[in-house]
């Protein structure tokens, strides 16, 4: 009995260590990138530079949370970049046509824009059973086109946006940018919900084994729909914050974010085929990609390297995941062979 208990304890420690390894690994790489860049360019470690870093990562991290909810269910949401652009423009347009609109209304409108698009994505994916890759790819273009029609040359300029709104983009609280605080809150809430509520575990179940989820009575269609609505809503929120951060919106706002977000999520340890990964990992992945991005700028490396490095990191992360899971499987097998004596 004691032997059994000890065995369990060890196994447990090993299991959680593996789970944490990814987060710790990203943390180490993050510090390394930060340290090396600071050696080259001392300005990189200034408060201002770090604040910029966090603000930039905050948007991707927030999108990463929504994307994680979707990817964990074995789906993907490629429309988030376009939604950011549309939401940012619609909110900006609201402020410029109705000066005096309360700031909070701006956020609500932004979130609503995203929620509607997410609901369409979710409905077509969950109820009509169209692969989400196709649905959200189509939505990426539809929303981008719609955005172009709406913008039609009217670029939103900072003068038409209320100061209180723009302040959210650059103000800090005890040195921490508001954007980062909002993103951290979103990550914390999502992390807790995905771990501690049945509906959160349902998302993992759906992605891990859809058939088993159906047999266990998991309402898969409803959960997938909700995941898309949440992903859309977070993209809408990120759009409003994009407006606050940049104070300017043109038709390219948010373009290309979708792949950046998917890269961040996967680098953060979320399995691309669903079933595992955490929003904390996804947020750290976003922070890492953004740090590398800024580090290259600070080191005056050509911007083209930026994307190449993001891509290489993505490949590395996926290859590492495969290698790790093969190792785990092998380890478990030999452990079983040695221990089973029933």
């Amino acid at each position, binding site marked *: 009995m004691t032997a*059994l208990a000890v*065995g*369990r304890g060890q*196994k*447990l420690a090993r*299991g959680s260590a593996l789970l944490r390894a990814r987060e710790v690994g990203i943390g180490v790489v993050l510090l390394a990138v930060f340290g090396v860049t600071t050696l080259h360019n001392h300005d990189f470690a200034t408060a201002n530079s770090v604040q910029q870093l966090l603000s930039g990562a905050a948007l991707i991290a927030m999108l990463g949370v929504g994307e994680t909810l979707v990817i964990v269910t074995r789906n993907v949401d490629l429309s988030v970049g376009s939604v950011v652009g549309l939401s940012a423009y619609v909110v900006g347009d609201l402020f410029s046509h109705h000066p005096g609109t309360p700031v909070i209304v701006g956020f609500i409108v932004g979130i609503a824009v995203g929620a509607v698009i997410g609901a369409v994505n979710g409905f077509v994916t969950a109820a009509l059973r169209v692969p989400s890759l196709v649905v959200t790819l189509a939505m990426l273009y539809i929303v981008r086109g719609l955005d172009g029609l709406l913008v039609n040359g009217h670029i939103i300029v900072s003068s038409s946006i209320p100061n209180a709104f723009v302040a959210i983009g650059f103000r800090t609280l005890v040195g921490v940018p508001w954007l980062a605080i909002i993103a951290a809150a979103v990550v914390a809430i999502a992390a807790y919900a995905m*771990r*501690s*509520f*049945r509906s959160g*575990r*349902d998302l*993992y*179940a759906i*992605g*891990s*084994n859809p*058939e*088993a*989820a*159906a*047999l*266990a*009575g*998991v309402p898969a269609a409803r959960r997938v729909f909700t995941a898309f609505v949440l992903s859309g809503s977070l993209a809408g929120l990120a759009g409003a914050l994009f407006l606050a951060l940049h104070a300017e919106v043109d038709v390219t706002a948010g373009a290309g974010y979708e792949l950046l977000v998917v890269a961040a999520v996967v680098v953060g340890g979320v*399995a691309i085929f669903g*079933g*595992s990964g955490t929003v904390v990992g996804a947020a750290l992945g976003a922070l890492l990609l953004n740090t590398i991005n800024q580090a290259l700028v600070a080191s005056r490396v050509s911007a083209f390297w930026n994307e190449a490095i993001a891509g290489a990191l993505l490949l590395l992360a996926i290859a590492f995941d495969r290698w790790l*899971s093969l190792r*785990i*499987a092998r380890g*478990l*097998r*030999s452990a*079983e*062979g*040695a221990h*089973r*004596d*029933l």
Partner: protein
Amino acid sequence: MSEGSKEDSKGVPRLTLDQAVKAFGAVQALADGSIALFGGEAHALVGENGAGKSTLVKILAGVYQPDSGTLAIDGQPVILNGPNAAREAGISIIYQEPTLFPDLTVAENIFMGRQPLRAGRRIDRPAMNRSAGEIFTRLGVALDPQRQARGLSVADQQIVEIAKALSSNSNVLVMDEPTAALTTVEVERLFEVIRALRREGAAVLFISHRLEEVFAICQRVTIMRDGRFVRSALARDITVDEIIRSMVGRDLDVLFPKTPAVVGEVVLQVDHLSREGVLRDISFSVRRGEIVALAGLVGAGRSEVARAIFGIDRRSAGVVTVRGKVLPNGSPLASMAAGVALVPEDRRQQGLVMDLGIDRNVALASLGRLSRFGLISRTRERDLAATWASRLQLKFGRLKNAVSTLSGGNQQKVVLGKWLARDPSLLIIDEPTRGIDVGTKAEVHRILDGLVADGLGVLMISSELPEVLGMADRILVMREGRITAELSREEADEDSVMRAATGQLKGAAA
């Protein structure tokens, strides 16, 4: 003799299914599904694959809604419109194929959708892990509730399935071949649990192809054939022969048609084969015309021997020789070229491409021979498949049909055909008849017998003792990665094999 089982009934059945009908398009999966389960009783449902048992189970599970017919619980008619409705009605199901979430923990697998909650509707993980641990204690197994389900052995997966069903405290338990992947010791533990459940008044529906298990644990037997209820009787009023006759609708006197072996030269020679942490110093040989069985408990390393010979896993030491030629380490291609064929344990995952047609699956291992200038000839592919389909008496609609539409037994024949088409000199076959109905089982045995008569050497891995004893010329018993005994057909019996398989644990095997 006891057609009127209802006369023996003790009051109102816990569950009654009456004349349930279920069709999928033109296919009538169930024409007359009728069964009555009584509290405190284990009830066996037997029938060949395709007899409609699984459809009946899925109706009880709420997964399928019958086209007509009635379902009643404690005499009250109910309609189960989903798995949750069935669960709420007190029915839980242990499925034949374990359906687990590989990314989640064992405890989460057990309680998915029913996790114990604490304030604020949050999941109470400590309570969940504790409850899972209690169930494992009750089952007498050491499984860590907080371990990921990925990488569990088939037997452990089955145990998690069983734990899942026990956790919901239902009073109707449906077990669809729960023992298919279990060892004898684990089966005995499961039987203990079934007995305990019966004492608590639960009704158990037990589906198994192993009739000895049916008689060991069940009080009542219902037989189905071709989607129809055939008869129901008390177990003490019916014999094995009567059951088999009712199942197949014909007499079937020999399950193990083994003709005496005429052995020839050595086909396979294994010397001091080892694999780090898995196999230790394995030596044996297989000759033409004989069936050598690898017996032992699950996890003893039997399948691992097959994998190491074939080259799927690398050997850390030892030499494997096929017809005098040394096989290179870790090369399935070289093994195939040397004339080795491997029919794996898990035919759905490893033996077949489920969505491809019968013809394509049969041709899969012979593509080189079927192609001309690198292009595969469809005609030759179809001819090859047609040849083997008729030689193995495959029951199918059209050769183009996906193998997923075939019954388990016929799927196994397709895997066999695929390898036999290569004209091998050594056939390694892992669990040749797992999950296959009695009728087809005998056919597979007859095929194997015919193959060795034609000079093939067969290395057979089987967890079914009657199969090992009935079919093998020699039996190698494994335990913890070693061969602990070699028994001839004459000296082998259940006792001697089980003793060698369990080592010191003589009592447990008895």
